[in-house]
């Protein structure tokens, strides 16, 4: 037993180190940070350009009162007396940002060198001016109009938990994303690891040295370890980013408040077990693939994406009966339950039951994977049929 565990540990370390490189992780973060920074600078520059109050030459006010042309984001300059040719000249030379000509309450034009973001603000401003003039002309009380436009003040009271805020949805979305990342990282590495070993003819030597169960356990643990490191790394990075944003006065603290220790432990446990389960599944399928370029079984590897897709329905109604059930059954709980825990009140027994069922499933999957793996890994030039795979699976 001690020797078996030692072998599993050796394989775990090997598989982990085979694919996990700290430098790659750091380079990835630096790469995305650099692009984020470039995007931020460009965005800031564009935004500052947008909100620099443009100098709008008003050539004609139409039936509007010139004294009303005041706006904190737009600079109106009276050019009613200026000759159109001169205004066009100034526009060409960049001395003014645009020429506004109002013909009537319903008709106006703006002349600009090309499309400008502030034109939308100008249009809103003119619409408001027009509405005020129209209301004034009709003699209707402006307060009555405001009252008409106001909606009913419907407050929400919940039997279980509180209202789902945008922060809740962001945290739930991030949780689903992290789960997706861990599972698909497992897919990529497990697939590469096993099909490459088959193609590089390493299998026979290793399988003569250790039992298939030890090999598969080590592989599952090593590759799951990589997924967990990525989740913890990016999770920590997200928390650090949130804390930095809070320092700049950006109101993201409510998102951070969702991450309490119980949620964190349950989330890590469920994701760990879910990733272990799917990595067992991947190992079994990958072992049956002879040539990844032509195998029909490659499509099976996308199966774990479906529970994650279901998890997004939690954002719509976290308390529906189907979603509650999906949060407990092993094939979907790893994605659905963490999202539910963020979005709504979850009874204490639900995570416990989900974890217990996942543990049983992981155990059965790893044994089934080893059975399929031990037979299929030696098949070169031929893939087992589903009937054969089902037979091996039934032997569990």
């Amino acid at each position, binding site marked *: 037993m001690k*020797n078996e565990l*030692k*072998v599993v540990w*050796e*394989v775990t370390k*090997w598989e982990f180190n*085979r694919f996990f490189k700290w430098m790659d992780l750091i380079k990835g973060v630096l790469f995305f940070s650099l692009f984020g920074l470039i995007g931020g600078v460009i965005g800031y520059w564009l935004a500052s350009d947008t909100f620099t109050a443009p100098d709008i030459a008003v050539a004609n006010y139409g039936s509007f009162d010139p004294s009303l042309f005041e706006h904190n984001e737009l600079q109106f300059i009276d050019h009613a007396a200026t000759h159109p040719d001169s205004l066009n000249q100034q526009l060409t030379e960049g001395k003014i940002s645009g020429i506004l000509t109002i013909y009537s309450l319903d008709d106006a034009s703006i002349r600009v060198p090309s499309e400008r973001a502030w034109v939308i603000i100008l249009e809103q401003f003119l619409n408001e001016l027009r509405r005020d003039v129209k209301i004034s002309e009709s003699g209707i009380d402006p307060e009555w109009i405001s009252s008409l436009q106001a909606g009913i003040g419907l407050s929400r009271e919940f039997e279980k938990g509180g209202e789902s805020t945008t922060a809740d949805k962001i945290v739930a979305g991030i949780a689903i994303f992290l789960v997706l990342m861990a599972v698909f990282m497992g897919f990529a590495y497990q697939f590469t690891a096993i099909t490459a*070993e088959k193609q*590089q*003819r*390493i*299998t*026979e*030597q*290793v*399988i*003569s*040295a*250790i*039992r298939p169960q030890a090999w598969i356990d080590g592989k599952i643990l090593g590759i799951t370890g990589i997924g967990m490191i990525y989740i913890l790394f990016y999770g920590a990075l997200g928390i650090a980013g949130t804390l930095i944003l809070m320092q700049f006065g950006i109101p993201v603290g409510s998102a951070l408040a969702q991450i309490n220790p119980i949620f964190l432990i349950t989330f890590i446990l469920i994701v760990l077990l879910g990733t272990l389960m799917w990595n067992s599944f991947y190992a079994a399928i990958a072992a049956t693939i002879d040539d990844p370029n032509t195998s029909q079984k490659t499509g099976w590897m996308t199966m774990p994406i479906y529970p994650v897709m279901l998890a997004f329905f939690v954002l719509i109604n976290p308390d529906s009966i189907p979603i509650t059930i999906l949060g407990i059954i092993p094939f979907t709980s790893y994605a659905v339950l963490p999202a539910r825990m963020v979005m709504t009140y979850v009874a204490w027994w639900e995570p416990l039951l989900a974890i217990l069922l996942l543990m049983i499933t992981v155990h059965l999957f790893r044994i089934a994977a080893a059975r399929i793996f031990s037979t299929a890994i*030696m098949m*070169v030039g031929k893939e087992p049929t589903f009937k054969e795979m089902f037979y091996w699976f039934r032997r569990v």
Partner: protein
Amino acid sequence: MLSFFNVTKQYSKVTAVDRLSFSIQKGEIFALLGPNGAGKTTSVRMIMQIIEPDSGEIRFDTAMVAGKSVDRRRLGYLPEERGLYQETPIIKTLVYLAALRGKDAVWSRKQAISWLERFGLKERMNDKVSALSKGNQQKVQFISSILHEPDFVVLDEPFSGFDPINQEFISDCIRELRDSGMTILLSAHQMQLVERIADRILLINDGRELVSGTLEAIRQKTISGQKIVVKYNGDVNHEQLDETPGISGYKMIDEAEWEIYLGEGFVLNGILNGLALAGKITDLKTAETTLHEIFIQSFKNGRNNNEK
């Protein structure tokens, strides 16, 4: 060390190994020979616990057994289908494969460096396996099979992919390992090398034994152990050779030189007259049959027996 008793393994329509029995003694080089598809690889895979026999028994010395099965840490294996982790440094690969056989990393590293030095690869120990030539990868693979100092090692085609100089070097290494107490099961097609290093030989075909024993014993059993090399001056009447009692077969080496095989139970005197009638003899000498000839002759005999 190992006894293989009445073992049968059947694949869907083919009986790969058919009631085969043999035993391997501790500290010997045992050669398992046979043509392609004879059942060598299946036998080896059953010994290495990769596949299970349908019937029969494979029994190791009690010292090799841990629990209900053989202790895999005490086995070494160089499979015919070679493969190593291509993108991993050589030294890491060797240490990992030894770790799977229960060896400590520090000890394995030291041993690996020593073996790599012997094979002229020490300077490249941190290179990726993919950077090595095919021959050098073969060397690394050979090292990986014996690095952990197994009690019993299976070397399936250990000479393939090597030039004659390295084949000699590998055969010296195998002998040295045997002398150090390791038991070796060897499967190879290089008959002249096997002939020189094997203590005992088993020839199989269609999953069954054709002949086994020491080379000398096999010679006695197959072609009576006698071969005569005759040089003629001028034409040779081979019909005369066919008609001479006691000649079981012959082969023309070139126009002047012929190899004549003596039939079982006959002596040289009995065929001398027939040889002289076939042509003008300029030289005549006896020679020992090679393993290659035994190999070919055994399969001819086996086929004839099957046809009968």
